[in-house]
């Protein structure tokens, strides 16, 4: 049979549309690429990533790894990535706690707790996060007293315009033993949990899991610490005339970024948690109450496991948002990856390469977070029989 290629053939049209779309995109990309090359030649802009190995020549306010202004650019970028990761990791943990508290608080029987959760969410969700960061920055750098009048929050903890100083254990090999002990405790706790579960399924009696598990973990760490010689030396900050020496310190930039992001994202997490809890049918709670479970047991055993399935996908989005919003740190000078790239653009003029670095870093972080949460989501999903 002879095939007639006519415009009425659906296959042909589909093919034509796709070829046309691809050709359009390719032509557009080619046009932009050509323009870029021409512009770069005209303006004498060099391209390529070879600048990564040349000396950066600028200082970075805070860095988790050793960094000097004589170090190459790639090391400056690495510092930026680590600073971004530091804010994102601590922020994700803190925002989960705050958001869960506020989200569960909306279902409290206490009117003040309900009102407070509601007020917090409405107030901080409706103000741009950048404005909140700037406000926290002013609060931390202008309203607090100068360093020679630093406020002593607790013995050894000082807060002032220049940041917060607090005691930090001096590194000793015993700490490695403590970490090993904690790991052993974790393993023991996991084994105990399995055993408790088997007991529960055999006898039907609930077996305490949380407290003994925590005791195993803490006990393991404590035992490791004792075996390691109980190193107790602390590096305690000492307040001098113009400077606070010793201890660990948080800069006001870091505190502003972290506080602003956690409080802003916490409102969205609270809404996600609330929606998740509301999605659990009321009959489940009533049935649990009829079985004689306490309110706390209803929440932990019946509501939360079901709500978690609804919560996890939007929660992942909020984690990604927090990570992406940490890029606003550039506005208050916290040296995250965007801030460092901005400096690098101004120094080298290689906008294309530096923006490519920013985008690659965030894309990688997004994909990694999605993959991790996807794995957890599959674990929490209903196991259908």
């Amino acid at each position, binding site marked *: 049979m002879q095939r007639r290629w006519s415009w009425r053939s659906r296959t042909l049209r589909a093919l034509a549309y796709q070829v046309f*779309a691809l050709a359009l995109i390719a032509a557009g990309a080619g046009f932009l690429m050509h*323009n870029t090359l*021409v512009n770069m030649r005209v303006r004498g802009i060099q391209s390529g990533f070879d600048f990564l190995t040349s000396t950066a020549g600028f200082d970075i306010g805070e860095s988790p790894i050793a960094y000097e202004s004589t170090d190459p650019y790639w090391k400056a970028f690495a510092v930026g990535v680590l600073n971004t990761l530091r804010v994102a990791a601590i922020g994700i943990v803190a925002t989960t706690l705050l958001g869960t508290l506020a989200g569960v608080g909306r279902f409290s029987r206490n009117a003040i707790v309900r009102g407070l959760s509601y007020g917090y969410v409405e*107030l901080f969700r409706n*103000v741009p996060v950048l404005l909140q960061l700037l406000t926290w920055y002013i609060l931390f750098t202008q309203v607090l007293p100068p360093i020679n009048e630093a406020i002593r929050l607790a013995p050894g903890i000082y807060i002032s315009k220049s940041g917060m100083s607090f005691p930090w254990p001096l590194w000793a090999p015993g700490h490695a033993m403590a970490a090993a002990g904690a790991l052993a405790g974790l393993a023991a706790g996991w084994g105990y949990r399995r055993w408790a579960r088997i007991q529960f399924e055999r006898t039907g009696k609930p077996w305490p899991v949380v407290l003994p598990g925590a005791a195993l973990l803490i006990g393991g760490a404590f035992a490791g610490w004792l075996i390691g010689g109980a190193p107790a030396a602390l590096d305690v900050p000492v307040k001098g005339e113009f400077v606070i020496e010793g201890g660990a310190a948080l800069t006001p930039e870091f505190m502003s970024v972290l506080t602003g992001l956690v409080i802003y994202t916490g409102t969205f997490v609270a809404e996600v948690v609330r929606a998740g809890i509301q999605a659990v049918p009321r009959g489940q709670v009533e049935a649990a109450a009829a079985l004689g479970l306490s309110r706390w047991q209803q929440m932990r055993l019946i509501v939360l496991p079901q709500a978690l399935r609804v919560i996890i996908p939007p929660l992942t989005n909020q984690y990604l948002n927090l990570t992406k919003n940490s890029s*606003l740190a550039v506005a208050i000078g916290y040296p995250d990856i965007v801030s460092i790239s901005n400096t690098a653009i101004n120094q080298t003029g290689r906008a294309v390469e530096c923006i490519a670095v920013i985008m690659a870093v*965030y894309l990688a972080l997004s994909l990694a977070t999605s993959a991790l949460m996807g794995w957890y989501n599959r674990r929490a999903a209903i196991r259908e029989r």
Partner: protein
Amino acid sequence: MAAALEPLAARAPPMRTGGPLAWIRTQLFGSWPSGVATLALVGLFAWWLPGLFDWAVLHAVTAPSLDACRAARGSGACWGAIVEKHRLVIFGRYPFDEQWRPLAATLALLALLTASCTRVFWNRWLALAWPAVLVAFFALMSGGVFGLASVPTDRWGGLPLTIMLSTFSVALAFPLAVLVALGRRSTLPAIRTLCAVYVELVRGVPLVSVLFMASFMFPLLMPPGVSIDVLLRVLAGITLFGAAYLAEVVRGGLQAVPNGQIEAAASLGLTYWQTQRKIVLPQALAMVVPGIMNSFISTFKDTSLVTIVSLYELTGSLGLAFDSDADWRPYKIEGYLFIAVIYFAFCLSMSRYSLWVETHLSRSRER
């Protein structure tokens, strides 16, 4: 046989379940943890609020007097700083004598937005009013016509710029988002992949990097000799960014339209575009109005980021107003609170509207 019938003592009346006392008993002291929480929180408020009230009201200075503000420093707020700077904060660097123009243009835009949210105005005229008002907005702002003095875009600023950026970017992103959402559900693999790559790529990077691209990289992408105004570049950046998020919202609506609708349309002999336009999109878009509204709210908040690439919208113009003036700079925090209230008022009214639409929509579905 005396006292054969002693009446029983009267039982206590049942607990009252109405009235303020009962409310306090059940809502504030329902159980002992609840009672402890109530006492702790009330204590906290009693400790904090009087100081806050003192600062914000009792010891506050409302007159634009620098001396009074300096005297009250540390004990009271200086709202006088806002009285002094409000024109600069709200209109940015727009020429002082011409500031009625951004005011009129913004009011027209707000009126259009309000009309678009009101059912009575949902007709053909609204569709015509949109392009008309958008063109009028640009004409009023930039001038050069009808004898208005020309004002270059780098002098635009403040609240008009915030409202303009968010409205224009959502209005432009919306058609693009519908196309991309349709593309992601298309049966043509090349188009589906292109749309998916676009959405995932944009959603994976922060807006700041897109703005950097608009600011630093865009000039390199244009043919030599062509230069595009920075405002338009940034607007294009926000539009492309917002379209990816909006496309996901629209796709959610498309997925919620039952397949039977499309099959029924096909059996009636409608073409692809007829099906989408007459059957699928009206149902899908009606379902995602709250999502679109949320998208608008986040774009409204996101416009504050353009201050990073030196456009002076509300947040930027506040910095401009206070940073350039050493006398008033210490009172920037009051300025931040002031624009926070503006953002809050806009965002809250939008989210309230979105809630109203949601209940409205679900009412029609309930039987």
